[in-house]
């Protein structure tokens, strides 16, 4: 039975894909062929080859992130299900793994189109890349022979292996390992373009390949993307649950999708917290590799991009926290009493975000600049530098984690004697960490940049990580032994909370498109930085207005395609997911309430 709400999505997607297919065929036919000599570039009318590649590559990469993020998400949920014996986790993992088969095919389709576009539009670049990376292309292809059967075994063997969960989890792990290797192989190509290394003639063939693969930004990008994929998987799960919740007909359905939204948001935030640290490492490596590239990104024409990024990440943190707070107020009986701490946290978050979004210098008229005494605002200018931004990012992470701890402990009464001391210790550690982060941030203004970057910023990050890693098991132990006094009520969240979930997923996707543009634009007019110059008419990076419109378009297309895949996947299930298990989520929740974060 086809859910009615998906029918329009199907029509929109079919129309869109048909239009794209027609357009593609027409434009390739019009491709220009320069006379004489090897063809270096081809173009298409109206949209231009660069924009076409941009759209195809962006959507392919988003799907890549999706098909790599979902298995991580699925494996984690399945593992929690095995450990807690809560069948909801297993069902959730299965529901999302079902999407993989359709999403996998779409990713491959887009990858094929991207390859044809690259060969067709940028033959000079692609010839060079093939010379350097040909063996990795082969490895990349072979990896799919491992990934694909593993995926089939993992998905089709779900029910068959229900009594051999260890083996099934192992398959899930293998799927993730192959997926990770596929990701890092293709990352090597893109990172080589940004940070190529000298391939000395004295090196053997394989030494050359390895030198090219193991370029300076390869591992930072690998780690950054791995974490970002977890975030993407989590927030897309949340958005899916949000949409289904809004359309749910029964309380049982609402309870199921409410719980699913909570889990998606939790996993998304879980990945989001370390993401700024991974981003910081990547930027450090970029500066180490080439200061000019770092300055172009952070202080050059791309500097305003980071204000947009701050805006998006700010919305994401606010959205994720807002969802937690809505859960506290609506799911926990008597949750209104949390309004005061929520207001405090909201104030801190908004202040921090205001600092994060303060630009370093302002584009002002001469008169305005004279009044200000320069391009830096006399008061706000101090918030525009990295010392302030690093400080507030760490505070935002601490506040978000505090939100989560508050939610985790809600409706529980400690039963162990040391619980009070543990909670007090965690609170004190949060306070001291915040003070230390602020002190280091202020001190950072008075030391050379190299000292701040190498010691102060890393210490700030280290302090926050230590607090997070200490507080989690401590509060976990308190909650595990606690007695539930007020049960969580699932399926009572307001519609605005579901829109927060949808917004979070949209923001994550949009941020990925934004940072993809940043990474690509940081190469400026080079196909391969410092090695192969872009001599095409598109050897420029468009202004952020144009780029922003394309990012929004890419995000919208991706969202619609994912909606289509969800709809296709839902066609296969005869029963509603919530109806597969007769027990209400509340019942299962009672069994394991003390064993996991709500």
């Amino acid at each position, binding site marked *: 039975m086809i859910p009615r709400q998906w029918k329009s999505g199907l029509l929109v997607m079919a129309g869109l894909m048909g239009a794209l297919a027609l357009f593609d065929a027409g434009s390739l036919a019009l491709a220009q062929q320069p006379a004489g000599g090897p063809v270096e570039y081809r173009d298409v009318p109206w949209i231009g080859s660069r924009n076409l590649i941009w759209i195809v590559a962006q959507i392919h990469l988003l799907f890549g992130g999706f098909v790599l993020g979902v298995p991580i998400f699925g494996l984690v949920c399945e593992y929690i299900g095995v450990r807690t014996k809560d069948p909801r986790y297993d069902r959730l993992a299965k529901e999302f793994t079902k999407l993989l088969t359709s999403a996998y095919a779409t990713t491959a389709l887009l990858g094929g189109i991207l390859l044809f576009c690259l060969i067709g539009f940028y033959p000079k670049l692609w010839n060079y890349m093939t010379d350097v990376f040909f063996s990795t292309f082969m490895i990349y292809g072979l990896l799919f022979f491992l990934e694909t059967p593993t995926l089939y075994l993992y998905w089709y063997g779900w029910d068959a292996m229900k009594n051999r969960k260890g083996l099934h989890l192992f398959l899930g792990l293998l799927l993730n390992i192959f997926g990770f290797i596929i990701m890092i192989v293709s990352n090597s190509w893109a990172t080589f373009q940004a940070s190529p290394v000298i391939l000395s003639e004295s090196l053997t063939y394989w030494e050359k390949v390895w030198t090219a693969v193991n370029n300076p930004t390869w591992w930072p990008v690998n780690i950054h993307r791995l974490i970002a994929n977890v975030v993407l998987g989590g927030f897309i799960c949340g958005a899916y649950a949000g949409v289904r919740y809004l359309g749910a007909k029964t309380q049982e359905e609402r309870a199921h999708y409410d719980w699913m939204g909570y889990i998606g948001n939790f996993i998304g935030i879980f990945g989001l917290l370390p993401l700024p640290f991974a981003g910081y490492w990547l930027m450090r490596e970029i500066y180490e590799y*080439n200061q000019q590239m770092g300055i172009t990104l952070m202080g050059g024409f791309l500097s305003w991009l980071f204000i947009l990024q701050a805006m*998006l990440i700010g919305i994401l943190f606010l959205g994720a926290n807002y969802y937690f707070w809505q859960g506290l107020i609506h799911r926990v009986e008597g949750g209104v009493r949390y309004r005061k701490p929520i207001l405090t946290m909201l104030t801190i978050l908004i202040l921090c975000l205001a600092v994060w979004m303060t630009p370093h210098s302002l584009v002002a008229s001469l008169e305005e600049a004279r009044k200000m005494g320069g391009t830096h605002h006399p008061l706000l200018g101090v918030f525009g530098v990295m010392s302030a931004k690093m400080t507030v990012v760490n505070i935002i992470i601490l506040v978000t984690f505090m939100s989560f701890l508050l939610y985790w402990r809600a409706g529980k009464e400690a039963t162990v004697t040391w619980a009070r001391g543990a909670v007090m210790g965690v609170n004190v550690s949060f306070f001291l960490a915040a003070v230390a982060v602020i002190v280091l941030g202020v001190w950072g203004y008075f030391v050379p940049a190299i000292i701040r970057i190498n010691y102060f910023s890393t210490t700030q990050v280290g302090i926050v990580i230590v607090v997070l890693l200490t507080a989690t098991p401590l509060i976990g132990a308190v909650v595990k032994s606690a007695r539930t006094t007020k049960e969580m009520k699932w399926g009572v969240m307001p519609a605005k909370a579901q829109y927060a979930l949808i917004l979070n997923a949209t923001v994550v996707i949009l941020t990925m498109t934004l940072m993809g543009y940043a990474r690509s634009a940081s190469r400026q007019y080079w196909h391969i930085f410092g090695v192969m110059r872009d001599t095409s008419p598109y050897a420029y990076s468009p202004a952020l207005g144009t780029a922003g419109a394309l990012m929004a378009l890419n995000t919208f297309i991706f969202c619609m395609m994912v909606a289509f895949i969800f709809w296709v996947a839902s066609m296969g299930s005869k029963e509603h997911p919530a109806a597969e298990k007769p027990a209400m989520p509340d019942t299962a929740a009672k069994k394991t309430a003390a064993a996991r974060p709500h």
Partner: protein
Amino acid sequence: MKNFIKVVLFVAAFLSFFAFIALQIPQQASLPPSIEKFDPAQIQSKDDLVKIGQKIFYGKGQCALCHSIGHSATARCPNLEGVGGKLTREFIYESVTQPQAYTYMDYTYSPPKFFPARMPVINKPPIDLNNNELLSVMSFLQSQGGEVTIDPSEIVVSDTGATLGKAGDPGAGQKVFVRMGCVKCHAPDPFKAKLAGKDEGMIRLAILDPNAGVKTDPKPVHKGFDQAMSVRDFNDVTAYLGSLKTAKVKP
């Protein structure tokens, strides 16, 4: 269905909001830099060389990204003020082309660690200065508290057509004609070698790109003269050969 449409509209509205904000911030495209033309013909004196070197130092060479001339709190690499009085020409050349030639050890570690140079190889990509540009930058550095020992005659004509339109000295060109060995094939009488009466542009092209327009003999014997001649020699010899146009009517 109604809810789904609401969600689609919500997403579309948010994305439109983002695109709107992106349009409100300062719009600045990153255009590729124009390819700088190094015109040796413009170099008549050491001062010219220094001026061009200064331009490259702050432009294509990207030296000022890390170095400063004079004290700077933000410079990442050594202050180059007075460097001309401290370093020899050879040392400057080696420093920019083989930054790792003198290896330093970091003695804060035990055993001391190899200290990698921050300086990029300046005549390799991405900066990739050519020999003429390198000589100009070195002149600029020598001018910082020292004596410029690089002579404009060391600038070689490596760019086709780079010196077109610049007059030389026909008298000096005659000597160059002999010195460079042109006489071995074209002389003793240039008129007999059919060099007289040629257009000056064609003479320049024949030296710089001997294969241009040759149909019968694809192996020109002129190869390498463009690299061997200084810009002054090149201007003089073309001026000399160009002057033979008027001489032709006399004999």
